[in-house]
Protein backbone atom coordinates (compact mmCIF):
# COMPACT_ATOMS: atom_id res chain seq x y z
CA UNK A 1 0.00 0.00 0.00
CA UNK A 2 2.58 2.50 1.10
CA UNK A 3 4.81 1.33 -1.72
CA UNK A 4 2.02 2.03 -4.21
CA UNK A 5 1.38 5.52 -2.87
CA UNK A 6 5.05 6.34 -2.92
CA UNK A 7 5.36 5.14 -6.50
CA UNK A 8 2.33 7.18 -7.55
CA UNK A 9 3.77 10.25 -5.91
CA UNK A 10 7.10 9.74 -7.67
CA UNK A 11 5.31 9.36 -11.01
CA UNK A 12 3.33 12.51 -10.35
CA UNK A 13 6.44 14.42 -9.43
CA UNK A 14 8.09 13.25 -12.62
CA UNK A 15 5.05 14.34 -14.63
CA UNK A 16 4.99 17.69 -12.87
CA UNK A 17 8.67 18.30 -13.42
CA UNK A 18 8.52 17.33 -17.09
CA UNK A 19 5.47 19.54 -17.64
CA UNK A 20 7.34 22.45 -16.10
CA UNK A 21 10.38 21.75 -18.25
CA UNK A 22 8.24 21.79 -21.41
CA UNK A 23 6.32 24.94 -20.68
CA UNK A 24 8.92 27.18 -19.07
CA UNK A 25 11.17 27.46 -22.16
CA UNK A 26 8.10 28.51 -24.19
CA UNK A 27 7.60 31.43 -21.85
CA UNK A 28 11.26 32.32 -22.19
CA UNK A 29 10.85 32.29 -26.00
CA UNK A 30 7.69 34.32 -26.24
CA UNK A 31 8.70 37.18 -24.00
CA UNK A 32 12.22 38.36 -24.74
CA UNK A 33 15.22 38.83 -22.50
CA UNK A 34 14.34 41.38 -19.79
CA UNK A 35 16.62 44.04 -21.30
CA UNK A 36 14.63 43.97 -24.56
CA UNK A 37 11.24 43.44 -22.94
CA UNK A 38 10.40 47.15 -23.16
CA UNK A 39 10.98 47.27 -26.94
CA UNK A 40 9.08 44.05 -27.62
CA UNK A 41 6.00 45.21 -25.70
CA UNK A 42 3.99 45.74 -28.90
CA UNK A 43 2.71 42.60 -30.59
CA UNK A 44 1.77 43.15 -34.22
CA UNK A 45 -1.47 41.66 -35.49
CA UNK A 46 -1.15 38.28 -37.19
CA UNK A 47 -1.97 37.58 -40.79
CA UNK A 48 -4.56 34.85 -41.43
CA UNK A 49 -1.74 32.36 -42.02
CA UNK A 50 -0.06 33.14 -38.71
CA UNK A 51 2.83 35.42 -39.71
CA UNK A 52 3.23 38.80 -37.98
CA UNK A 53 1.77 41.57 -40.14
CA UNK A 54 4.48 43.99 -41.21
CA UNK A 55 2.62 45.20 -44.29
CA UNK A 56 2.46 48.82 -45.29
CA UNK A 57 4.38 51.76 -46.64
CA UNK A 58 7.49 52.44 -44.55
CA UNK A 59 9.32 55.19 -46.41
CA UNK A 60 12.69 56.38 -45.10
CA UNK A 61 11.74 60.00 -45.74
CA UNK A 62 11.72 61.13 -42.08
CA UNK A 63 15.40 60.24 -41.79
CA UNK A 64 16.62 62.58 -44.50
CA UNK A 65 19.18 64.88 -42.81
CA UNK A 66 20.35 62.21 -40.35
CA UNK A 67 23.98 61.68 -41.30
CA UNK A 68 25.11 58.17 -42.15
CA UNK A 69 28.16 58.50 -39.91
CA UNK A 70 28.28 60.21 -36.56
CA UNK A 71 30.22 63.40 -36.00
CA UNK A 72 33.44 62.34 -34.24
CA UNK A 73 32.75 64.96 -31.54
CA UNK A 74 29.62 63.07 -30.46
CA UNK A 75 31.62 60.01 -29.44
CA UNK A 76 29.31 57.18 -28.41
CA UNK A 77 26.29 59.47 -27.98
CA UNK A 78 23.31 58.04 -29.90
CA UNK A 79 21.14 61.12 -29.42
CA UNK A 80 21.80 64.78 -30.20
CA UNK A 81 21.91 67.39 -27.46
CA UNK A 82 18.87 69.68 -27.02
CA UNK A 83 20.86 72.48 -28.72
CA UNK A 84 21.71 70.26 -31.69
CA UNK A 85 18.08 69.19 -31.96
CA UNK A 86 16.99 72.84 -31.93
CA UNK A 87 19.41 73.45 -34.81
CA UNK A 88 17.85 70.57 -36.75
CA UNK A 89 14.40 71.98 -36.15
CA UNK A 90 15.49 75.44 -37.23
CA UNK A 91 16.95 74.02 -40.42
CA UNK A 92 13.69 72.18 -41.15
CA UNK A 93 11.76 75.42 -40.67
CA UNK A 94 14.06 77.30 -43.06
CA UNK A 95 13.61 74.54 -45.65
CA UNK A 96 9.83 74.71 -45.29
CA UNK A 97 9.98 78.48 -45.84
CA UNK A 98 12.16 78.08 -48.94
CA UNK A 99 9.71 75.54 -50.33
CA UNK A 100 7.06 78.25 -50.41
CA UNK A 101 9.00 80.16 -53.04
CA UNK A 102 6.84 79.73 -56.13
CA UNK A 103 9.13 81.42 -58.60
CA UNK A 104 12.79 81.80 -59.31
CA UNK A 105 14.32 85.06 -58.13
CA UNK A 106 15.68 87.33 -60.89
CA UNK A 107 19.24 87.18 -59.63
CA UNK A 108 19.31 83.40 -59.24
CA UNK A 109 22.18 81.53 -60.87
CA UNK A 110 21.46 78.86 -63.43
CA UNK A 111 21.89 75.39 -61.99
CA UNK A 112 21.17 71.79 -62.73
CA UNK A 113 19.38 70.92 -59.49
CA UNK A 114 15.61 70.72 -59.23
CA UNK A 115 13.77 73.39 -57.23
CA UNK A 116 13.71 72.67 -53.50
CA UNK A 117 10.03 71.92 -53.35
CA UNK A 118 10.50 68.90 -55.65
CA UNK A 119 12.37 67.17 -52.88
CA UNK A 120 11.15 65.09 -49.97
CA UNK A 121 12.06 66.44 -46.56
CA UNK A 122 12.82 64.70 -43.29
CA UNK A 123 11.42 65.24 -39.84
CA UNK A 124 14.03 66.39 -37.31
CA UNK A 125 15.34 63.26 -35.58
CA UNK A 126 17.14 62.84 -32.28
CA UNK A 127 19.48 60.10 -33.48
CA UNK A 128 23.04 61.21 -34.16
CA UNK A 129 23.70 58.84 -37.06
CA UNK A 130 22.36 55.87 -38.99
CA UNK A 131 25.45 53.79 -38.21
CA UNK A 132 25.07 52.46 -34.65
CA UNK A 133 27.78 49.85 -34.53
CA UNK A 134 30.75 50.26 -34.07
CA UNK A 135 29.67 52.24 -30.98
CA UNK A 136 31.27 55.42 -32.34
CA UNK A 137 28.72 55.44 -35.17
CA UNK A 138 31.37 55.44 -37.88
CA UNK A 139 31.99 52.95 -40.66
CA UNK A 140 34.96 50.70 -39.77
CA UNK A 141 38.26 50.90 -41.63
CA UNK A 142 38.66 49.34 -45.02
CA UNK A 143 40.81 46.25 -45.33
CA UNK A 144 44.13 46.58 -47.12
CA UNK A 145 42.62 44.65 -50.01
CA UNK A 146 39.77 47.15 -50.32
CA UNK A 147 42.15 50.11 -50.11
CA UNK A 148 44.25 48.59 -52.87
CA UNK A 149 41.19 48.10 -55.08
CA UNK A 150 40.13 51.70 -54.56
CA UNK A 151 43.61 52.94 -55.47
CA UNK A 152 43.65 50.78 -58.60
CA UNK A 153 40.22 52.05 -59.67
CA UNK A 154 41.39 55.64 -59.24
CA UNK A 155 44.55 54.87 -61.22
CA UNK A 156 42.55 53.35 -64.08
CA UNK A 157 40.65 56.62 -64.51
CA UNK A 158 43.82 58.66 -65.05
CA UNK A 159 43.98 60.30 -68.46
CA UNK A 160 40.33 59.59 -69.20
CA UNK A 161 37.49 62.07 -69.48
CA UNK A 162 34.32 61.79 -67.40
CA UNK A 163 31.94 60.76 -70.18
CA UNK A 164 33.73 58.32 -72.46
CA UNK A 165 31.27 55.48 -72.02
CA UNK A 166 28.18 54.61 -69.94
CA UNK A 167 30.42 52.68 -67.56
CA UNK A 168 31.93 55.97 -66.40
CA UNK A 169 28.69 56.66 -64.54
CA UNK A 170 27.54 55.04 -61.30
CA UNK A 171 25.23 52.03 -61.37
CA UNK A 172 22.55 54.41 -60.11
CA UNK A 173 23.05 56.90 -62.94
CA UNK A 174 23.13 54.02 -65.42
CA UNK A 175 19.78 53.00 -63.89
CA UNK A 176 20.93 49.47 -63.15
CA UNK A 177 20.56 49.10 -59.38
CA UNK A 178 21.37 50.86 -56.10
CA UNK A 179 21.77 47.54 -54.32
CA UNK A 180 19.89 46.52 -51.19
CA UNK A 181 21.18 49.19 -48.79
CA UNK A 182 21.33 51.89 -51.45
CA UNK A 183 17.64 51.22 -52.08
CA UNK A 184 16.64 52.04 -48.52
CA UNK A 185 19.07 54.69 -47.22
CA UNK A 186 17.21 58.04 -47.22
CA UNK A 187 17.91 60.43 -50.11
CA UNK A 188 16.27 63.49 -51.62
CA UNK A 189 13.31 61.74 -53.24
CA UNK A 190 11.52 58.44 -53.93
CA UNK A 191 12.27 56.92 -50.54
CA UNK A 192 9.34 54.53 -50.77
CA UNK A 193 9.65 51.11 -49.14
CA UNK A 194 6.61 48.85 -49.10
CA UNK A 195 6.09 45.43 -47.50
CA UNK A 196 3.60 42.96 -49.00
CA UNK A 197 3.24 39.50 -47.49
CA UNK A 198 1.89 36.23 -48.87
CA UNK A 199 1.81 32.78 -47.30
CA UNK A 200 5.43 31.66 -47.03
CA UNK A 201 6.86 34.92 -48.41
CA UNK A 202 7.62 38.51 -47.58
CA UNK A 203 8.11 40.91 -50.49
CA UNK A 204 9.74 44.30 -50.12
CA UNK A 205 9.25 46.89 -52.85
CA UNK A 206 11.79 49.67 -53.13
CA UNK A 207 10.59 52.67 -55.12
CA UNK A 208 13.94 53.59 -56.60
CA UNK A 209 14.78 51.77 -58.81
CA UNK A 210 11.52 49.71 -58.91
CA UNK A 211 13.10 46.76 -57.07
CA UNK A 212 11.19 43.87 -55.54
CA UNK A 213 13.00 41.72 -53.02
CA UNK A 214 11.19 38.43 -52.54
CA UNK A 215 12.08 36.61 -49.34
CA UNK A 216 11.07 32.93 -49.02
CA UNK A 217 10.39 31.87 -45.43
CA UNK A 218 10.46 28.10 -46.00
CA UNK A 219 14.04 27.56 -44.86
CA UNK A 220 15.21 26.76 -48.38
CA UNK A 221 18.91 27.36 -49.04
CA UNK A 222 20.50 30.12 -51.11
CA UNK A 223 21.40 29.08 -54.65
CA UNK A 224 25.07 28.25 -55.29
CA UNK A 225 27.50 31.12 -55.60
CA UNK A 226 27.35 30.62 -59.37
CA UNK A 227 24.18 32.73 -59.33
CA UNK A 228 24.99 36.29 -58.32
CA UNK A 229 22.96 39.45 -58.61
CA UNK A 230 22.92 43.13 -57.65
CA UNK A 231 20.21 42.63 -55.04
CA UNK A 232 21.55 39.27 -53.90
CA UNK A 233 19.48 36.28 -52.81
CA UNK A 234 17.38 36.70 -49.68
CA UNK A 235 16.10 34.06 -47.25
CA UNK A 236 14.07 34.88 -44.17
CA UNK A 237 12.75 33.48 -40.94
CA UNK A 238 10.92 34.76 -37.89
CA UNK A 239 12.53 35.21 -34.51
CA UNK A 240 9.48 35.90 -32.41
CA UNK A 241 7.86 38.82 -34.24
CA UNK A 242 11.10 39.93 -35.89
CA UNK A 243 11.67 39.15 -39.54
CA UNK A 244 15.32 38.22 -40.01
CA UNK A 245 16.57 38.33 -43.60
CA UNK A 246 19.92 36.95 -44.70
CA UNK A 247 21.08 38.04 -48.14
CA UNK A 248 24.08 36.57 -49.95
CA UNK A 249 25.03 35.82 -53.60
CA UNK A 250 25.87 39.44 -54.32
CA UNK A 251 27.79 40.57 -57.36
CA UNK A 252 31.02 42.00 -55.95
CA UNK A 253 32.80 45.24 -56.74
CA UNK A 254 29.59 46.88 -57.88
CA UNK A 255 27.43 48.76 -55.34
CA UNK A 256 28.64 50.14 -52.06
CA UNK A 257 26.69 50.60 -48.83
CA UNK A 258 26.26 54.34 -49.19
CA UNK A 259 23.50 56.63 -50.38
CA UNK A 260 22.25 55.48 -53.77
CA UNK A 261 24.65 52.53 -53.56
CA UNK A 262 27.74 54.71 -53.56
CA UNK A 263 30.76 54.39 -51.34
CA UNK A 264 33.31 51.60 -51.29
CA UNK A 265 32.02 48.65 -53.33
CA UNK A 266 31.33 45.55 -51.23
CA UNK A 267 32.66 42.15 -52.23
CA UNK A 268 30.74 39.13 -53.50
CA UNK A 269 31.25 37.53 -50.09
CA UNK A 270 29.19 40.05 -48.18
CA UNK A 271 26.49 38.65 -45.90
CA UNK A 272 23.78 41.19 -45.16
CA UNK A 273 21.54 40.51 -42.17
CA UNK A 274 18.48 42.69 -41.83
CA UNK A 275 15.93 42.70 -39.03
CA UNK A 276 12.45 44.16 -39.25
CA UNK A 277 10.50 44.55 -36.02
CA UNK A 278 7.21 46.39 -35.76
CA UNK A 279 7.50 48.22 -32.44
CA UNK A 280 4.21 50.14 -32.62
CA UNK A 281 1.29 50.22 -35.05
CA UNK A 282 3.12 52.94 -36.99
CA UNK A 283 6.78 52.29 -36.20
CA UNK A 284 9.23 49.76 -37.59
CA UNK A 285 12.66 49.11 -36.14
CA UNK A 286 14.98 48.29 -39.02
CA UNK A 287 18.59 47.24 -38.65
CA UNK A 288 21.09 46.00 -41.21
CA UNK A 289 24.40 44.38 -40.32
CA UNK A 290 27.06 44.39 -43.02
CA UNK A 291 29.49 41.52 -42.73
CA UNK A 292 32.13 41.66 -45.45
CA UNK A 293 35.58 40.75 -44.11
CA UNK A 294 37.11 41.34 -47.56
CA UNK A 295 36.10 45.01 -47.47
CA UNK A 296 35.72 46.19 -43.83
CA UNK A 297 37.83 45.11 -40.89
CA UNK A 298 34.73 44.35 -38.81
CA UNK A 299 30.98 44.00 -39.29
CA UNK A 300 28.96 47.17 -38.88
CA UNK A 301 25.29 48.00 -38.32
CA UNK A 302 22.91 50.63 -39.57
CA UNK A 303 19.67 51.37 -37.72
CA UNK A 304 16.67 53.17 -39.17
CA UNK A 305 13.45 53.77 -37.21
CA UNK A 306 10.84 53.82 -39.99
CA UNK A 307 7.40 55.38 -39.69
CA UNK A 308 4.30 54.00 -41.39
CA UNK A 309 2.90 56.46 -43.91
CA UNK A 310 -0.16 55.03 -45.69
CA UNK A 311 -0.43 58.24 -47.75
CA UNK A 312 3.07 57.93 -49.23
CA UNK A 313 2.81 57.88 -53.03
CA UNK A 314 5.11 55.12 -54.26
CA UNK A 315 5.75 56.01 -57.89
CA UNK A 316 6.99 53.95 -60.80
CA UNK A 317 10.61 55.03 -61.05
CA UNK A 318 11.17 54.30 -64.75
CA UNK A 319 14.82 55.27 -64.51
CA UNK A 320 16.37 53.66 -67.59
CA UNK A 321 13.36 54.40 -69.78
CA UNK A 322 13.79 58.10 -69.04
CA UNK A 323 17.58 58.25 -68.95
CA UNK A 324 17.97 61.10 -71.42
CA UNK A 325 20.86 62.35 -69.32
CA UNK A 326 23.01 59.41 -70.43
CA UNK A 327 22.53 60.26 -74.11
CA UNK A 328 23.10 63.93 -73.44
CA UNK A 329 26.25 63.49 -71.33
CA UNK A 330 27.86 61.27 -73.95
CA UNK A 331 26.80 63.40 -76.91
CA UNK A 332 27.83 66.55 -75.10
CA UNK A 333 31.28 65.19 -74.32
CA UNK A 334 31.74 64.13 -77.96
CA UNK A 335 30.67 67.61 -79.08
CA UNK A 336 33.17 69.18 -76.69
CA UNK A 337 35.91 66.91 -78.02
CA UNK A 338 35.02 67.70 -81.62
CA UNK A 339 35.06 71.42 -80.85
CA UNK A 340 38.47 71.08 -79.19
CA UNK A 341 39.77 69.13 -82.21
CA UNK A 342 38.40 71.74 -84.60
CA UNK A 343 39.98 74.55 -82.57
CA UNK A 344 43.33 72.71 -82.65
CA UNK A 345 43.04 72.17 -86.40
CA UNK A 346 42.10 75.83 -86.87
CA UNK A 347 45.19 76.94 -84.99
CA UNK A 348 47.54 74.90 -87.18
Amino acid at each position, binding site marked *: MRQRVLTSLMVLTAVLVSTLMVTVPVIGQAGQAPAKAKKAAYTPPKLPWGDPDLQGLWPGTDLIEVPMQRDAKAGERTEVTPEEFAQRQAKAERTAENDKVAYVAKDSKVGINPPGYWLEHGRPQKITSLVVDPPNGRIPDLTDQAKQKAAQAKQAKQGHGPNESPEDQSLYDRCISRGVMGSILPVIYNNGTQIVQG*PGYVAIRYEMIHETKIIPLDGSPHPSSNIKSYMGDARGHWEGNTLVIETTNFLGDKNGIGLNGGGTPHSADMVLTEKWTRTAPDMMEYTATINDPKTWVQPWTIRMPLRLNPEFPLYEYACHEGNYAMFNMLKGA*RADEAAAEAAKAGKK
Partner: protein
Amino acid sequence: MRKSLTLFSTAAAAVVCISLTLTPGKAQAPAAPAKAVAKAVAKGPRMPDGRPNLNGVWEYIGTANWDIQDHSPAPGPMWQLGAIGAIPAGQGVVEGNEIPYKPAALEKKKQNKASAPAEDPEAKCYMPGIPRATYMPFPFQIIQSNKDILMAYEYASANRLINMGKPIEAGSDTWMGTSNGHWEGDTLVVDVTGLNGLAWFDRAGNWASDKVHVVERYKRRSNDVMDYEATIDDPSVFTRPWKISLPLYKRAEKNAQILEFKCVEFAEELLYGKYKKQPTK
Protein backbone atom coordinates in the same frame (compact mmCIF):
# COMPACT_ATOMS: atom_id res chain seq x y z
CA MET B 1 -6.87 2.68 -0.73
CA ARG B 2 -9.24 5.59 -0.62
CA LYS B 3 -6.63 7.83 0.93
CA SER B 4 -4.10 7.15 -1.81
CA LEU B 5 -6.72 7.70 -4.48
CA THR B 6 -7.60 11.08 -3.01
CA LEU B 7 -3.94 11.91 -2.85
CA PHE B 8 -3.50 10.79 -6.45
CA SER B 9 -6.41 12.81 -7.78
CA THR B 10 -5.42 15.93 -5.85
CA ALA B 11 -1.92 15.72 -7.18
CA ALA B 12 -3.18 15.09 -10.69
CA ALA B 13 -5.48 18.08 -10.41
CA ALA B 14 -2.54 20.14 -9.20
CA VAL B 15 -0.46 19.06 -12.17
CA VAL B 16 -3.27 19.97 -14.56
CA CYS B 17 -3.77 23.36 -12.89
CA ILE B 18 -0.08 24.16 -12.96
CA SER B 19 0.38 23.11 -16.57
CA LEU B 20 -2.65 25.19 -17.59
CA THR B 21 -1.22 28.34 -16.03
CA LEU B 22 2.12 27.67 -17.64
CA THR B 23 0.65 27.05 -21.08
CA PRO B 24 1.36 29.91 -23.50
CA GLY B 25 -1.43 32.46 -23.73
CA LYS B 26 -3.04 33.91 -26.86
CA ALA B 27 -0.71 36.89 -27.24
CA GLN B 28 2.28 34.70 -28.04
CA ALA B 29 2.99 33.30 -31.51
CA PRO B 30 1.10 29.99 -31.81
CA ALA B 31 3.40 27.11 -32.58
CA ALA B 32 2.23 24.07 -34.58
CA PRO B 33 -1.28 25.27 -35.64
CA ALA B 34 -0.09 28.38 -37.59
CA LYS B 35 2.66 26.43 -39.36
CA ALA B 36 0.09 23.90 -40.49
CA VAL B 37 -2.17 26.68 -41.77
CA ALA B 38 0.72 28.33 -43.59
CA LYS B 39 1.72 25.04 -45.20
CA ALA B 40 -1.86 24.25 -46.21
CA VAL B 41 -2.38 27.71 -47.60
CA ALA B 42 0.89 27.64 -49.51
CA LYS B 43 0.07 24.28 -51.14
CA GLY B 44 -3.68 24.45 -51.47
CA PRO B 45 -5.71 26.47 -53.95
CA ARG B 46 -7.47 28.71 -51.43
CA MET B 47 -6.47 31.60 -49.21
CA PRO B 48 -7.84 31.58 -45.63
CA ASP B 49 -10.59 33.95 -46.77
CA GLY B 50 -11.74 31.40 -49.36
CA ARG B 51 -10.45 33.27 -52.41
CA PRO B 52 -8.36 31.41 -54.99
CA ASN B 53 -4.71 31.37 -53.94
CA LEU B 54 -2.65 32.52 -56.88
CA ASN B 55 0.64 32.67 -54.99
CA GLY B 56 3.57 31.16 -56.83
CA VAL B 57 5.93 31.45 -59.75
CA TRP B 58 4.16 31.40 -63.12
CA GLU B 59 5.33 31.47 -66.71
CA TYR B 60 3.90 31.35 -70.19
CA ILE B 61 5.15 28.75 -72.67
CA GLY B 62 4.77 29.70 -76.32
CA THR B 63 5.79 32.28 -78.89
CA ALA B 64 3.40 35.14 -78.13
CA ASN B 65 6.32 37.42 -77.33
CA TRP B 66 7.61 36.93 -80.88
CA ASP B 67 4.21 37.54 -82.45
CA ILE B 68 0.78 37.35 -80.86
CA GLN B 69 -0.75 36.23 -84.16
CA ASP B 70 -0.26 32.95 -86.07
CA HIS B 71 3.13 32.91 -87.74
CA SER B 72 5.37 30.57 -89.71
CA PRO B 73 9.01 30.05 -88.76
CA ALA B 74 11.27 32.74 -90.13
CA PRO B 75 14.93 33.78 -90.11
CA GLY B 76 15.83 36.02 -87.21
CA PRO B 77 17.26 39.51 -87.42
CA MET B 78 20.87 38.34 -86.95
CA TRP B 79 22.25 35.60 -89.22
CA GLN B 80 25.26 35.41 -86.88
CA LEU B 81 23.05 33.59 -84.37
CA GLY B 82 22.05 30.95 -86.89
CA ALA B 83 19.09 28.87 -85.78
CA ILE B 84 19.44 30.21 -82.24
CA GLY B 85 18.19 33.61 -83.35
CA ALA B 86 15.49 32.32 -85.70
CA ILE B 87 11.79 32.85 -85.10
CA PRO B 88 9.86 29.67 -84.27
CA ALA B 89 6.40 28.99 -85.68
CA GLY B 90 3.58 29.90 -83.37
CA GLN B 91 -0.13 29.64 -82.96
CA GLY B 92 -1.59 33.03 -82.22
CA VAL B 93 -3.09 34.02 -78.90
CA VAL B 94 -5.48 36.60 -80.38
CA GLU B 95 -9.07 35.41 -80.44
CA GLY B 96 -10.13 35.31 -84.08
CA ASN B 97 -6.44 35.87 -84.98
CA GLU B 98 -7.27 39.37 -86.18
CA ILE B 99 -6.08 42.62 -84.63
CA PRO B 100 -8.61 45.22 -85.79
CA TYR B 101 -6.26 48.13 -86.57
CA LYS B 102 -7.48 51.31 -88.13
CA PRO B 103 -5.64 51.86 -91.45
CA ALA B 104 -3.18 54.48 -90.14
CA ALA B 105 -2.53 52.38 -87.03
CA LEU B 106 -1.76 49.35 -89.18
CA GLU B 107 0.86 51.41 -91.02
CA LYS B 108 2.50 52.24 -87.70
CA LYS B 109 2.55 48.51 -86.81
CA LYS B 110 4.36 47.84 -90.09
CA GLN B 111 6.84 50.62 -89.37
CA ASN B 112 7.44 49.17 -85.91
CA LYS B 113 8.05 45.74 -87.39
CA ALA B 114 10.47 47.15 -89.96
CA SER B 115 12.43 48.95 -87.25
CA ALA B 116 12.65 45.88 -85.02
CA PRO B 117 14.59 44.63 -83.15
CA ALA B 118 16.57 47.81 -82.51
CA GLU B 119 13.44 49.85 -81.82
CA ASP B 120 11.65 47.11 -79.89
CA PRO B 121 11.43 48.40 -76.31
CA GLU B 122 12.29 44.85 -75.25
CA ALA B 123 15.69 45.17 -76.92
CA LYS B 124 16.25 48.41 -75.03
CA CYS B 125 15.35 46.70 -71.73
CA TYR B 126 12.37 48.97 -71.22
CA MET B 127 9.58 47.72 -68.97
CA PRO B 128 7.18 45.63 -71.07
CA GLY B 129 3.85 46.99 -69.86
CA ILE B 130 0.63 45.01 -69.65
CA PRO B 131 -0.17 42.54 -71.19
CA ARG B 132 3.29 41.80 -72.65
CA ALA B 133 4.91 41.34 -69.21
CA THR B 134 2.63 38.33 -68.71
CA TYR B 135 3.89 36.37 -71.70
CA MET B 136 7.58 37.30 -71.82
CA PRO B 137 9.87 34.25 -71.85
CA PHE B 138 10.65 34.94 -68.19
CA PRO B 139 8.81 33.84 -65.04
CA PHE B 140 6.94 36.16 -62.72
CA GLN B 141 5.89 35.71 -59.12
CA ILE B 142 2.52 36.50 -57.60
CA ILE B 143 2.57 37.51 -53.94
CA GLN B 144 -1.06 37.54 -52.92
CA SER B 145 -1.63 39.02 -49.49
CA ASN B 146 -4.79 39.41 -47.50
CA LYS B 147 -5.09 42.84 -49.15
CA ASP B 148 -3.40 43.63 -52.46
CA ILE B 149 -1.70 41.44 -55.05
CA LEU B 150 1.89 42.02 -56.08
CA MET B 151 3.23 40.76 -59.40
CA ALA B 152 6.99 40.76 -59.73
CA TYR B 153 8.30 40.03 -63.23
CA GLU B 154 11.84 38.71 -63.70
CA TYR B 155 12.31 40.70 -66.91
CA ALA B 156 13.88 44.08 -66.10
CA SER B 157 12.64 43.81 -62.49
CA ALA B 158 9.29 45.14 -63.69
CA ASN B 159 6.57 44.92 -61.06
CA ARG B 160 3.14 46.21 -60.20
CA LEU B 161 0.84 46.21 -57.21
CA ILE B 162 -2.78 45.39 -58.00
CA ASN B 163 -4.94 47.46 -55.70
CA MET B 164 -7.74 45.22 -54.42
CA GLY B 165 -9.40 47.94 -52.37
CA LYS B 166 -11.41 50.91 -53.54
CA PRO B 167 -10.26 51.64 -57.13
CA ILE B 168 -7.72 54.43 -57.51
CA GLU B 169 -7.41 56.63 -60.55
CA ALA B 170 -4.19 56.55 -62.57
CA GLY B 171 -2.03 59.57 -61.81
CA SER B 172 0.46 60.00 -64.59
CA ASP B 173 1.08 57.46 -67.34
CA THR B 174 3.53 54.72 -66.50
CA TRP B 175 5.14 51.75 -68.23
CA MET B 176 3.36 49.18 -66.07
CA GLY B 177 0.08 51.09 -65.72
CA THR B 178 -2.24 51.51 -62.76
CA SER B 179 -4.01 48.28 -61.80
CA ASN B 180 -7.25 47.94 -59.86
CA GLY B 181 -8.47 44.41 -59.17
CA HIS B 182 -11.55 42.65 -57.83
CA TRP B 183 -12.89 39.11 -57.73
CA GLU B 184 -15.75 37.86 -59.88
CA GLY B 185 -16.33 34.48 -58.28
CA ASP B 186 -13.03 32.66 -58.74
CA THR B 187 -11.75 35.00 -61.47
CA LEU B 188 -9.34 37.80 -60.65
CA VAL B 189 -10.31 40.75 -62.83
CA VAL B 190 -7.69 43.48 -63.21
CA ASP B 191 -8.50 46.82 -64.78
CA VAL B 192 -5.39 48.53 -66.15
CA THR B 193 -5.30 52.19 -67.18
CA GLY B 194 -2.59 54.83 -67.32
CA LEU B 195 -0.34 52.82 -69.64
CA ASN B 196 1.96 55.13 -71.58
CA GLY B 197 1.54 53.61 -75.05
CA LEU B 198 5.31 53.13 -75.43
CA ALA B 199 5.46 49.38 -74.86
CA TRP B 200 4.72 46.94 -77.68
CA PHE B 201 2.60 43.81 -77.57
CA ASP B 202 5.33 41.66 -79.14
CA ARG B 203 8.50 41.68 -81.25
CA ALA B 204 6.35 41.98 -84.38
CA GLY B 205 5.57 45.61 -83.55
CA ASN B 206 1.94 45.31 -82.47
CA TRP B 207 1.06 48.36 -80.42
CA ALA B 208 -1.60 50.48 -78.72
CA SER B 209 -1.66 54.12 -77.66
CA ASP B 210 -1.63 55.73 -74.22
CA LYS B 211 -5.43 55.65 -74.34
CA VAL B 212 -5.53 51.87 -74.14
CA HIS B 213 -7.66 50.24 -71.48
CA VAL B 214 -6.69 46.65 -70.67
CA VAL B 215 -8.90 44.31 -68.65
CA GLU B 216 -7.22 41.09 -67.53
CA ARG B 217 -8.84 37.94 -66.21
CA TYR B 218 -6.90 35.33 -64.26
CA LYS B 219 -8.68 32.03 -63.54
CA ARG B 220 -6.98 28.98 -62.16
CA ARG B 221 -7.87 25.92 -64.25
CA SER B 222 -6.04 23.45 -62.01
CA ASN B 223 -3.24 23.59 -59.50
CA ASP B 224 -0.65 24.10 -62.22
CA VAL B 225 -2.48 25.94 -65.01
CA MET B 226 -4.08 29.36 -64.96
CA ASP B 227 -6.12 30.78 -67.84
CA TYR B 228 -5.25 34.36 -68.73
CA GLU B 229 -7.24 36.74 -70.85
CA ALA B 230 -6.59 40.37 -71.71
CA THR B 231 -9.17 42.51 -73.47
CA ILE B 232 -7.60 45.44 -75.31
CA ASP B 233 -9.73 48.52 -75.86
CA ASP B 234 -8.28 51.56 -77.64
CA PRO B 235 -10.69 53.35 -80.00
CA SER B 236 -7.89 55.61 -81.26
CA VAL B 237 -6.02 52.60 -82.67
CA PHE B 238 -8.53 49.78 -83.16
CA THR B 239 -12.02 49.60 -84.66
CA ARG B 240 -13.27 47.46 -81.78
CA PRO B 241 -11.96 45.78 -78.61
CA TRP B 242 -10.10 42.51 -79.08
CA LYS B 243 -8.86 39.74 -76.81
CA ILE B 244 -5.68 37.82 -76.07
CA SER B 245 -6.01 34.49 -74.28
CA LEU B 246 -3.33 32.02 -73.21
CA PRO B 247 -2.51 29.57 -70.42
CA LEU B 248 0.04 30.28 -67.69
CA TYR B 249 1.95 27.41 -66.09
CA LYS B 250 3.10 27.13 -62.49
CA ARG B 251 6.86 26.58 -62.24
CA ALA B 252 7.11 23.17 -60.59
CA GLU B 253 10.76 23.12 -59.43
CA LYS B 254 11.09 22.64 -55.70
CA ASN B 255 13.23 25.77 -55.59
CA ALA B 256 11.19 27.78 -58.10
CA GLN B 257 11.96 31.47 -57.84
CA ILE B 258 12.37 34.44 -60.10
CA LEU B 259 15.99 35.46 -60.58
CA GLU B 260 17.43 38.83 -61.49
CA PHE B 261 17.52 40.08 -65.07
CA LYS B 262 18.63 43.69 -64.93
CA CYS B 263 19.12 43.93 -68.66
CA VAL B 264 20.18 47.58 -68.82
CA GLU B 265 23.85 46.60 -69.13
CA PHE B 266 23.03 44.30 -72.03
CA ALA B 267 21.24 47.14 -73.82
CA GLU B 268 23.81 49.91 -73.28
CA GLU B 269 25.80 49.07 -76.38
CA LEU B 270 22.62 49.15 -78.48
CA LEU B 271 21.45 52.45 -77.02
CA TYR B 272 24.66 54.38 -76.44
CA GLY B 273 27.32 52.54 -78.46
CA LYS B 274 27.65 55.14 -81.18
CA TYR B 275 28.07 57.96 -78.65
CA LYS B 276 31.01 56.38 -76.84
CA LYS B 277 34.46 57.88 -77.20
CA GLN B 278 35.53 54.60 -78.81
CA PRO B 279 32.32 54.02 -80.74
CA THR B 280 31.24 50.57 -81.77
CA LYS B 281 30.82 50.83 -85.55
